[in-house]
């Protein structure tokens, strides 16, 4: 069995360039992470703020021993989004992850990864993409373990990597409308990048004062953080090869250390969970999707260690 | 049957001025249920598990409500007093004319709900199943029932339809 890898998904939020540069510098130097996904996946308007920093950040990460992958936009409709997608699919020096079918048109023959927005729910779809050059697939966050196990088996037969998000808010929906701009009474074209005010998303609370969702521009995320520490040993057994942490505005180095230690069999999931709890993140943890239940739920899994 | 003159055009309120003992109604309701069971067996397949569900259908301008448990073998359909409702899982309330238009396939249930002319509570899935099952009945259940009472029934339905159109649900 291959050594499971820890990955860091693309930053979904609109963090200021300086904050992102510092964040990736720390990741490069301190985080026991194998693969880092870069790129603006959510909002094409934000891209110009960071475009000029990517090569520097990527090199820094590579020097830190990380594999760097560039992720494409999840929604492609406007001219600039079509151009960005095409440019990314022609990027030569790095691996790429495709998040919209628009990116597949011109990818022919080139190895690529399939991102979580591409809806790989079954082995037939996985097989089709693999046949067309995909070598790695990140599953949708809502897919239950019963299906993920079957996909992992197919992936292993095809020599394809299979990745699951194990930490961070779950992406629940994307839209053509910007809900950050809407909350502030603006249109998307005149948003003035108000999403920058909420580095961990804008909270939406029910009228009964129950925290429910988070808004990130055109994206809607869960209030709860997905946290599959307890499930990791079973996931490794079923053949999941890559374990994705989604960047949140918290101490991601500590999160990465805790997950890496579980993945490498150094500590029990229980210990990792206690370390993560000690960070006092301010949001509940959930694992319902993985267990085929309501995503917001926290199901007690039978924790055991990788030995 | 005579209604108070001031209300003559509003047949819906007929029930309100008739201090009718419920036992008079029960055999008629039983006949209606048996007839629909006989002629529209397809309704039950669409109801799925909800053939065992108790529904209260509440014409709010009537002095009594109706209870329905749509079991294919022994449908239970009877008039009940609001103060003594039998155990039920779902309740559908609206004016008599609103409910009539619904079973007459004359108006869209969602539209009535959006305008809040129709109020539902309890097991929403049961109500949606019943609505969809009844909507698949060809023709009109209201017309079928009217037919049972011959020419008088047809006249009554015509008058009720006129009344229903004279006082349509709230427009937005």
């Amino acid at each position: 069995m291959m050594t499971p890898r820890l990955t860091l998904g693309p930053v979904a939020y609109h963090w200021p360039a300086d904050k992102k540069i510092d964040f990736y510098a720390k990741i490069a130097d301190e985080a026991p992470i194998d693969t880092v996904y870069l790129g603006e996946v959510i909002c094409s308007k934000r891209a110009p703020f960071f475009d000029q920093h990517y090569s520097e950040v990527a090199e820094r990460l590579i020097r830190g021993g990380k594999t760097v992958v560039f992720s494409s936009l999840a929604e492609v409709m406007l001219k600039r989004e079509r151009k960005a997608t095409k440019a990314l699919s022609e990027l030569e020096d790095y691996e790429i992850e495709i998040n919209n079918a628009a990116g597949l048109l011109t990818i022919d023959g080139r190895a690529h990864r399939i991102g979580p927005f591409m809806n790989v729910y079954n082995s037939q779809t996985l097989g089709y993409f693999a046949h067309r050059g995909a070598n790695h697939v990140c599953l949708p966050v809502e897919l239950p373990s019963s299906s993920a196990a079957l996909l992992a088996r197919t992936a292993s037969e095809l020599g394809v990597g299979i990745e699951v998000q194990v930490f961070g808010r779950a992406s629940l929906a994307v839209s053509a409308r910007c809900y950050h701009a809407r909350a502030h009474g603006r249109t998307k074209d005149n948003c003035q990048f108000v999403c920058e005010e909420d580095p961990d998303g804008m909270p939406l609370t029910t009228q009964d004062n129950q925290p429910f969702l988070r808004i990130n521009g055109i994206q809607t995320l869960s209030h709860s953080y997905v946290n599959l520490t307890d499930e990791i040993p079973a996931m490794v057994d079923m053949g999941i090869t890559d374990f994705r942490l989604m960047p949140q505005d918290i101490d991601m180095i500590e999160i990465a250390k805790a997950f890496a230690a579980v993945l490498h069999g150094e500590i029990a999931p229980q210990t990792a969970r206690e370390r993560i709890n000690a960070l006092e993140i301010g949001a509940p943890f959930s694992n319902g999707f993985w267990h085929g239940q309501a995503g917001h739920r926290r199901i007690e899994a039978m924790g055991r260690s990788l030995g | 049957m005579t209604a108070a003159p001031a209300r003559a055009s509003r047949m819906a309120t007929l029930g309100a001025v008739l201090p009718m003992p419920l036992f008079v109604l029960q055999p008629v309701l039983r006949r209606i249920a048996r007839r629909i069971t006989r002629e529209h067996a397809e309704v039950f397949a669409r109801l799925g598990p909800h053939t065992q569900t108790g529904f209260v259908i509440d014409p709010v301008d009537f002095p009594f409500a109706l209870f329905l448990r749509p079991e294919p073998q022994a449908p239970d359909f009877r008039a009940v007093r609001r103060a003594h409702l039998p155990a039920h899982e779902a309740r559908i309330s609206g004016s008599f004319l609103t409910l009539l238009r619904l079973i007459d396939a004359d108006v869209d249930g969602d539209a009535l709900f959006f305008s809040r002319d129709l109020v539902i509570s309890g097991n929403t899935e049961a109500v949606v199943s019943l609505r969809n099952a009844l909507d698949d009945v060809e023709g009109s259940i209201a017309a079928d029932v009217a037919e049972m009472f011959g020419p008088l029934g047809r006249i009554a339905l015509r008058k009720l339809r006129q009344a229903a159109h004279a006082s349509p649900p709230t427009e937005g």
Partner: protein
Amino acid sequence: MTVAELICPAGTPASLRTAVDAGADAVYCGFQNATNARNFPGLNFSPDELAASVRYAHEQGTKVLLALNTYPPDGKFDLWKEAADLGARLGIDAYIVADVGVAEYIRQNHPGIRLHLSVQAAASSPEAIRYYVREFAVKRVVLPRILTIPEIREIKSEIPCEIETFIFGNHGLMVEGRCSLTNYATGLSTNMDGVCSPAAEVHYVRDDQENLSTRLGEFTIDRFGAGEKAGYPTICKGRYTTAQRQGGYYAFEEPISLNLARLLPDLIDAGVNAFKIEGRQRSRAYVREVVSSFRYAVDQIRAGNKPDLADLVALTEGQKETQGAFRTKKWR
């Protein structure tokens, strides 16, 4: 000028006949399971019902499109295969699909039957559409309800297939086929189970001031004051609070329905081949009224006349209508 077929919803055999009789060029429908995106209680077709319905539709010259527009989770793919095979046996005229695996299965096993790309596939650029046309010989794409008319015109000029757009009904702005909001709250998935706000998880709670709260699972997704118009009980139509907006605001969209009646000539001019009416979950009364109104409108336009349209507002959600994305992009 395109022919502009009228594509109409059929949730039950009776509404299918109603749509056919009201002048639908094609009806779309699904089986009573997770293979379609309106897997609602009491709705949809048994195999026998679909067989009889296809016969009825074909006798009147109306086409039948089978919606297989959900995403089979691994381990359940056979249900979608069986539905596709059954549809072929019953003589349906086209499949509406979203999943790449399902599209590939149909392309290989039923190559003689037309494939339409569902709105659930969220193909919103010429590149994405061309990809599906090239890979699966898709004949028509159902465009997401998020594009303006100039954008539709531009897409049409760059793709080798027909375009279908929604013209009336529920107005959603979330990218379809990418929404897990229902699953987050209820454990049932829009993509995998074909449900959006399943009725079994929806509860209406009235307080003593006649306020009506809508609860989905454990979450209150909206609250209506006495007499205030209600909308669909979906998360994206609910009201919430946030720091800037206290007291409950429509964070995503107003409870409003799409009605493009007045834009039909522009859409035809932009190259739209088919107009789709949403509402398989709606009643025969809705189908009769909406389909006959749009039949009249399309026929008038074809004859070079300006249609005088019946007011369809009462049938719309929240009893308000909009021209949505199609007129301008300001709403984004």
